[in-house]
């Protein structure tokens, strides 16, 4: 039988490359945004489908990683709004829980939980800056806010993290 779907091989190879390079960290970013593994898995897949659709219009003004983060965060925002009613297959199995592969040090666990518990706007800035190693400019672009707003949010996040982690043996960030 002849194929009805003619693949644009180059574009799809590039998409596969992006998924291999950034898939895990985007999935985790989506999880930390949505706090739901199943939804994060859907969101990251949607992110790459959207990226594929927009690939031709990507002008390279930011790095691919910044561009993908931007799409992922907008996708998560959309998910948050529509999370209660999606017309998905009820038969789809829910994948395993995101348990760590290795046992995690309790202090590291504390830091993780504390970051996870930050209010959304601070949490995302912290994750993009300290975890994804993005610059303030890139984060500003991803979140559609000014650079100084990002800076302010990071400062505020540091204070919140310090307050939360005070009393434990760790100081999380330089202040």
């Amino acid at each position: 039988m002849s194929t009805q779907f003619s693949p644009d091989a180059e574009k799809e190879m590039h998409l596969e490359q992006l998924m291999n390079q950034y898939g895990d960290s985007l999935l985790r970013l989506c999880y930390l945004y949505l706090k739901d593994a199943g939804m994060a898995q859907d969101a990251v897949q949607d992110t790459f489908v959207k990226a594929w659709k927009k690939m031709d219009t990507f002008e390279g003004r930011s790095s691919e990683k910044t561009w993908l983060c931007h799409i992922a965060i907008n996708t998560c925002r959309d998910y948050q709004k529509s999370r209660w009613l999606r017309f998905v297959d009820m038969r789809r199995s829910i994948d395993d829980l995101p348990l760590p592969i290795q046992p995690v040090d309790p202090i590291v666990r504390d830091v993780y939980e504390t970051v996870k518990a930050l209010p959304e706007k601070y949490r995302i800035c912290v994750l993009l800056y300290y975890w994804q190693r993005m610059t303030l400019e890139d984060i500003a672009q991803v979140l559609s806010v000014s650079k100084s707003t990002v800076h302010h949010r990071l400062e505020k996040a540091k204070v919140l993290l310090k307050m939360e982690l005070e009393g434990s043996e760790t100081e999380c960030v330089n202040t």
Partner: protein
Amino acid sequence: MREHMIGSAMDQNLSGLYMTKEMKMNVLYRVQNDKAAAPKTFRLSFGLIAAIVLILVTVGAVAAVLLGGKAFTKDVVAPIAMQTDSERFSAQEVEEILRLADENGIPVPQYLRERWEKWGGEYKEELMRALVKTELGFYPGSWSLEDQNWYSQMLVECGLADGVGNLLPGENDFTQEQVLHMANTLMVEKLELPPDYADETKFQRFFTFGMDTNNPNVTFKRWDVGYEDLETGAQYNFMMLDNGLITQAWRYQPGTEASLHALTEDDVVNSFRHYFGNSVLQWNMEVLEQFYHSFAMCDHTKKTADPGIRIVAQTCFLLPGGHYTYMTEEEAIRLAREVCKADESLQPYVIYFGDGPNNMHWKISFWEGTEKSMQFRLYAQIDGRTGETEYAGDYSGAPWYAPLVSADLHASIAEDKTPRIYEKPENWRSPIFTDDYWDALEALDYNAETREQRIAEWDSQYGNATNQWPYAHQAVFWWWDMNPEFQNINCHVPGIPVEGEHISKEEAEKIARNCFMEEAPSLFTEEELSRMNILPPNFHYQVDNGQIVAHVWRFDIQIQFDDGQYSDSLIHIDAHTGEILEKDISSAPGNG
């Protein structure tokens, strides 16, 4: 410990979460489908018309023997699936199915074909669904109810599902026509669903009826009706239980923060009370779960008058028995009884709540008395995954809804055991609700007897948006709405500006405007800036750990874009010093 710890904390804790091969293949598969589904414009040439005629003649001649995706799945693939107990087809079975599919002209997407060949097998359900989709459409929610029910039954027959999830309405159920009529009417009237919603070139309709068979405790059957605007992506959603209770009706516009809701808080609360009884404590866990979702998805502009039920609605109730249940209810009760040392004469009252696979909790409360008058005595909260005790305590002085909220919220409420009051009690001490509040209450003739009348008067005098009310009224409204016993929950409470002590609203506005304009030219065009709108500011006390740490003028500056959407920028100014405490200047539509 330095910054790098954040990165490694994330990586270590989430090392089990990675993008699987299946997920990547699914993306590629969807990309293929999207490409196939992309609308194309054709110009018919004579040659093309001739070719189409030829194809039609040929297809007509062999139509008697060729099967479509649905019939092929039913008559060819399902019998193969039934031959083994495995959830997967073997490589040989997949090869055979592909061969037969080719013979029948089933358009198997190329990527799916490659994936099946590459993996040497496939989950039966996924393969069957993919084949059915080639005829009925990509989204099962857009199939007819009969097709959804047929597919669901076939999965049960093949041993791939425990129960039929997609149902056909029975004699006692609403008919499809009735439900569609109700849904369409409500959405056109309240959600501005365009009247041409039936035009399939403009809207995709989703319509399902069924129940979740993954959880044996689910009893509600549910109708879902939705429309998606194919051009704008706007979604219109309607959800109704089979007893006629409309649980959700809302519109969502991608890229905006604001949704449009057809139900108010009162609509939701009153409907649930009407259908399931006035006492929330008598609702079972399934009703509570539905209530949580319904309340979350309603219009919160006008708050329901009962602050207790608003607190209850913060609990993300779950129905145990589903995927995220690691411990039975009986086991949780046994553990709680042990921890609380609750004797067998005390009855357990159980809720299950959480917001993700790593955050599930049982809260077991023990009570005596009768079901109509439950006297709650003790409680324990158990980690739903590990069985560890998180909290245990007694209910002395707790409000009626305490068994329905998490123990930490309960504890923060119970710390201040002040009963609900409408005038300043003797020996009153609160760093937040100071004498100013009590004076304002008195000055506005607000007390237990007059409160409802006053709020109604202010509502009609100043409008529904309480942030447009005079500051003293706002502060009193907050008091009425939330009650001082909740004061530790929020980090901002409306305050009352005092002339001479605080900088004036006008002065604060100048500061806010200057602060905004320092950055705005790089984010907005001049034309957009000409549409700048500084909303009347709020006056807040910023509360930290139960103490007021700042008096704040809070400005919301809106910029309207050409498409009618707004961006919101927030600026907080210290009302004593004029210092900028926080600024969040954004050009994102819907930010705020």
